[in-house]
């Protein structure tokens, strides 16, 4: 995932980081028009979504405010690619039929779903050393159990594989895991390599720094500061595109390793998903999220092998239930995230491309 390219699309506008550096597909002549067209489309979408989408958090308005914000900041957005990658969080319509991928899983000697998770993301996927030996828990873990139950009829028919941030895509491609449920942002870059389910959570990048720090957010206050991010994360990509003069050489296998560096004074700030940053702040009361809201809007999705359509549809079906079920999304949110993230209006609505 080494490339410094990504593109994020949000309901309220299109933002692309540094795609301009990759003009390979861009037809210069079409660029301007494509940009206009995409912005127009994006505005339309935003209007629609403001009405339709329940807001996850009051302070995180992905609408025009965030959109113009992003547009101001990221003027280098290359609209040429917006044509082919609009709203990457759109997935395949749900279905309950088992296809070849699911059959293969069911025919395993050990009939278990192999799921790539994290064991370092507080409240998402982590190991509480004081509870049962080696037990993983968190929002993502709940979801993985849910999928296993619906697919294989047993909540515990899961083998958890902890994978580092930059191995999420390779782990799926090599078949090391059946799916990745690991706070993984759906974006245009990644949908080229893997298939995603519908979005199950909305988040965005945010800066985390000590309370006493003079850093105010993802802005000029980062100048000359050492900023840490996880290798292969959207945070790393964002920083590579615009660092505000910060030293961004420190990259680590996991976002939590950034908090270690921060506590040891090796870096001055951390950039990561706000959902994860909140988990870091929960582990260290001397740090806080900087800036009013995340400076991007992203969606988490379950990643699967690119051609595993049957599995994607099946997982989308599970997610549909998960969103509606009162023991599902809402219960998990209240259990794991409400303390750190506050009240939620509910999960993001699924979007489909077919």
């Amino acid at each position, binding site marked *: 995932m080494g490339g410094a390219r990504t593109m994020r699309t949000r309901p309220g506008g299109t933002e692309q980081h540094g795609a301009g550096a990759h003009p390979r597909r861009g037809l210069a002549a079409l660029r301007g028009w494509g940009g206009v067209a995409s912005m127009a489309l994006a505005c339309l979408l935003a209007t629609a979504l403001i009405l339709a989408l329940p807001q996850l958090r009051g302070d995180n308005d992905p609408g025009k405010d965030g959109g113009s914000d992003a547009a101001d900041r990221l003027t280098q957005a290359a609209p040429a690619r917006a044509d082919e990658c609009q709203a990457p969080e759109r997935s395949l319509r749900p279905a309950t039929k088992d296809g070849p991928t699911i059959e293969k899983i069911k025919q395993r000697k050990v009939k278990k779903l192999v799921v790539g998770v994290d064991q370092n993301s507080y409240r998402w996927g982590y190991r509480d*050393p004081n509870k049962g030996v*080696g037990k993983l828990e968190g929002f993502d873990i709940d979801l993985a159990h849910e999928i296993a139950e619906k697919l294989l009829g047993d909540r515990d028919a899961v*083998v958890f594989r902890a994978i580092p941030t930059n191995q999420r895509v390779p782990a799926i491609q*090599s078949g090391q895991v059946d799916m990745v449920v690991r706070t993984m942002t759906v974006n245009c870059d990644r949908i080229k390599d893997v298939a995603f389910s519908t979005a199950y959570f909305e988040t965005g990048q945010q800066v985390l720094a000590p309370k006493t720090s003079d850093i105010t957010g993802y802005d000029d206050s980062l100048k000359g500061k050492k900023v840490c991010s996880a290798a292969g994360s959207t945070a790393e990509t964002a920083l590579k595109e615009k660092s505000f003069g910060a030293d961004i050489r420190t990259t680590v296998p996991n976002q939590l390793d950034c908090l270690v560096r921060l506590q040891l004074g090796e870096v001055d700030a951390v950039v990561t998903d706000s959902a994860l940053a909140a988990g870091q702040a929960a582990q260290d009361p001397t740090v806080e999220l900087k800036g009013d809201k995340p400076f991007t809007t992203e969606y988490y999705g379950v990643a699967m092998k690119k051609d595993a359509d049957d599995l994607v549809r099946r997982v989308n079906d599970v997610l549909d239930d998960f969103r509606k079920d009162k023991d599902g999304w809402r219960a998990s949110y209240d259990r794991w995230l409400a303390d750190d993230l506050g009240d939620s209006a509910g999960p993001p609505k699924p979007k489909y491309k077919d």
Partner: protein
Amino acid sequence: MTHPPQAPPQVPAPSHPPLPTQAAATAKAPRQAPTPARSTAWAEGVDRLRAAATTEPGRLRAIGAVLAALVLVFGAVTAWQTTSRADAADRVLNRSQPLSNDAAAIYRSLADANTAASSGFLAGGQEPAKVRERYQRDIDRASEKLATAASNAGSDASSAASVSQLNKLLPQYTALIERARANNRQGLPLGGAYLRYANDTMQTRMLPAAEKLYKAENERLTDDYGDAKPYPWLAIAFGVVALAALGWAQHRNYRRTNRVFNTGLVAATTAAAVALLWLLAGHTFARSGLNESYDRGVKSLNVLNDARISSLKARGNENLTLVSRGAETVLVGDATKDKFDVAYQRQMARLAGAKAGDEGLLGRAAELADDASGERPVAAAAKNVTEWKDRHKSARASDDSGDYEGALDKVIGAKSAEPTGESFDNVDAALDVALAHEQREFKRAAEDGKGAMTGLPVGAAVLAVVGAAAAVLGIGRRLSEYR
């Protein structure tokens, strides 16, 4: 009394004009010149010197002086060369080998502390007391040995650099572990992140420095062996020359006086011969003792230390496989594999060999073990390594099938679960016994070697003084015949 022995020299004088060590040129010309009448004291002194070269008493005096000097030089060179060798042997026994042992202990303690820390983490928020004690003991030993190493590193720049680096990193490492523990106790995953950072510090910075120190100390040991073992050729050469000169002097004496023995010269010859024999025998014994201490001790110790470090690394990696749960992978050929399991396999292959015919470090240790009490613990270690590998396989199978708890039980669980930890502890204990045995072997042989040189420098000096005195007396006896 004035003449008798003086007549013959006139006749054979031309037959052997050059004295072996006296300058021949000065001896030749003034021989015919008659002794002038006595004059001033100054002139007399000069004349005497001249006469010394021309008259028999003079020659005798010169011969006596040369013999005494040769014997004394032989003694001095022997004392010097054997002292330097005895010193080197002493350094081998009391300094460089213990230091190399200490360096190995530092390396081992650090690796063991890291392994204990990861075991403690695997066990949960409250690590078992035994594991904590083990960690503490390792850290204590490492810092204690580092202090010794620091005071002994002396002028060796590379050792000193490694020691100071380790001295700097050790408190950092323990601080990271303490933070990991504190967070772990609160149930925060941050503890695991600190543990990974600590492990990284250990693996990429501390263990390489410790290995460097170990290698530098081993080199120093090899150098000291190199200083202790070479034959003292110079001393031997002087000994042979002194003996030859003494023999020649006695032969000359016999030719001129028909007396077979001159007690003084015989005594001097005996003293010199005894010193030379002592030198040869003492050094040969010392050498064989040192060789034995190297072949039976140091070689085995090196292999066993390597084996122990490999087993520690393998254990640490086995733990980390479960700590990281596949979080870090490496590409082996086309396959993505767990980084720590790959490292475990590599260390096990080093330890016990990867394929048929390759017995690994334990195989080499078994070859080097030269008696039953050395072979027994090595065989026990090999047996336990086999068991460890089998158990590891079963633990991996559990983990791969999703039974993480089962895998954990098979690695750090109670005895009833037949954990790999038990096999590892057995391997470690067996290697400890083997190391202690080889250390004793080394010590015994090196002490024998060093003992063979005991008294040699002083003895050689005393014998040389006695020999020189005897030579002077012997010549003096002849000389007195002219008074």
